[in-house]
């Protein structure tokens, strides 16, 4: 009995706390974002204002473009690496694990400046250099996401079965390995994507304009507009997250192996 009632208290407490901390501000902000001029009436005025600001679409497109490139580059780099580490290179795994954690340890400022200096000059002058930074800062997360997915399937046996049946390495990777770790690939992609979209420090240090730096600048001019920006980003992020989660869930269902 005691346990039951304490569980009830715990649950209601967390509901109350999350309502206070999370839901109320969000609801309040949403209401505010629809307030009209000088706080009178309700309209889409703030959202329209937001869309008519200089650089809104441009920065949004840049961010999405860079995020997609970062997601793709990360997968191209990390999927084969993680597969290799789990199949044959077990002894290199701790080393690679350590290297992938470094971005969390090294201060962002030194990471940005240091890496920028060593970047080939063709890249230094384009916004695409950010793609490489985004990949680097998402390494700690993609390493884990892919590693978990790979550990969950008996990779060695599947690969051996595929080879035994006459498949080349290419076919094995495309038809067996990638589909079996789809969920891990989706979450790695999602994490890279999310981190890239939200990245501010490096982008701003290197003086590039993306959606995250744009929001800071734009928001300084109009308080209601700034609120509309945050609601817009929040809803957009949730929408992206849902889409990716739906995809990865669908693939997970196929992968579930009966024990």
């Amino acid at each position: 009995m005691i346990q039951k009632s304490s569980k009830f208290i715990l649950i209601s407490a967390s509901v109350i706390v999350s309502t206070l901390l999370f839901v109320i501000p969000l609801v309040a902000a949403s209401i505010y974002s629809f307030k009209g001029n000088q706080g009178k009436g309700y309209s889409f005025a703030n959202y329209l204002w937001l869309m008519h600001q200089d650089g809104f679409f441009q920065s949004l497109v840049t961010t999405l473009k860079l995020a997609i490139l970062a997601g793709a580059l990360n997968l191209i780099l990390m999927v084969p690496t993680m597969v290799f580490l789990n199949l044959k290179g077990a002894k290199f795994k701790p080393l690679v694990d350590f290297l992938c954690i470094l971005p969390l340890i090294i201060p962002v400022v030194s990471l940005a400046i240091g890496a920028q200096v060593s970047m080939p000059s063709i890249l230094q002058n384009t916004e695409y250099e950010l793609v490489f930074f985004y990949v680097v800062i998402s390494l700690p997360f993609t390493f884990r996401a892919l590693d978990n997915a790979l550990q969950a399937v008996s990779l060695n046996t599947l690969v051996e079965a595929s080879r035994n049946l006459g498949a080349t390495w290419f076919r094995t990777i495309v038809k067996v390995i990638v589909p079996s770790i789809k969920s891990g690939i989706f979450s790695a992609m999602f994490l890279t994507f999310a981190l890239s979209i939200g990245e501010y420090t490096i982008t701003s240090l290197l003086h590039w304009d993306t959606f995250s730096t744009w929001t800071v600048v734009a928001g300084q001019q109009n308080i209601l507009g700034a609120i509309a920006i945050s609601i817009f980003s929040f809803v957009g992020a949730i929408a992206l997250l849902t889409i990716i989660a739906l995809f990865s869930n669908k693939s997970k269902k196929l992968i579930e192996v009966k024990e």
Partner: protein
Amino acid sequence: MTKESLRESSTLELVKVSRNFGSVKALDRLNLNVKPGELVALLGPSGCGKTTALRIVAGLESATSGDLFVNQVRYNETPANMRDMGMVFQSYSLFPNLTVTENIEYGLRARKVDPSLRAKQVTKMLELVALGNKAKSFPHQLSGGQQQRVALARALAIEPRVLLLDEPLSALDAQVRKQIREEIRSIQLNLGITTLFVTHDQEEAMAIADRVGVMNHGRLEQIDKPTSLYNDPRTPFVASFVGQANKIPATMRNKGKVQVLNQKINVSEKDSHFPEGKNLNVIVRPESIELASENDPESTNGLVAIKSFLGPLTKLGIAVEGTPLIHLSISSKEVRKFNIGDKISFKISSEEVMVENV
């Protein structure tokens, strides 16, 4: 029985194949010769190198030294995906993202087999393993036994030169196991496919194989027909690994005889070199011990310690001073009157016994 496979049956030959893992000799100059269409079971305790041998044949592991031949062609350097060998693994190995049909046709797609031929072959394989109604299921929707049957169909679909089975039944329960091993044997005979079957279950090996190879420490101790292996084991290891065997302390006497309990019995020809007075163990099968009259000077007395009824036969464990429990199996009728704790007299009925160093 008619052969249905298009491919001629192959021979398989391992010549002095060794495989070291660091200081561990997983295989130690293994020689093995499998005839076309033959099913050879490799039997041995855990860690004796059975899986390693199979993996070397499949090309999933490379030999440290020695040669592998299929139809007299050296296969050492042939990559695994070019060997045309169907393997069924010990653990479930179906591709989880593919349906039963897609799993079975995987090897055919890799070989770019014509779609209509492919479909025909899949249908044939599904029929062979009696899973026609599961064609569209995913592996996780199948039972363990069904999964292994699909794995077998997948391996057979490519009409392999050699079929390799690595304890395919060990994850299944006893009933299913028996049924599927019979299915495997009948399919194998039907297709006339050269097969290597690895197991550590001696009953399974005896039931399914043309010949059984008993492995120990990376070598083949003896390879023979199941009956010969049981009735005429060449080494004490084989005798105790295949079937049950009592090890009874004994002493060597002159003229190739051994003193065991109250009896003097001939030792086999190859063991007659042991010097007189040497302490040995005599190896005797449970069915080579019979009940005897107490007055027989050759008989030994003991107390019934274990009695387990196995239908027509009953197993007795008899406690005798100075020896481990002696096991015998005798017709249930004959031992009805004995209960646990009763005094009982017995003797060894074989004319000749095998001995081993203590």
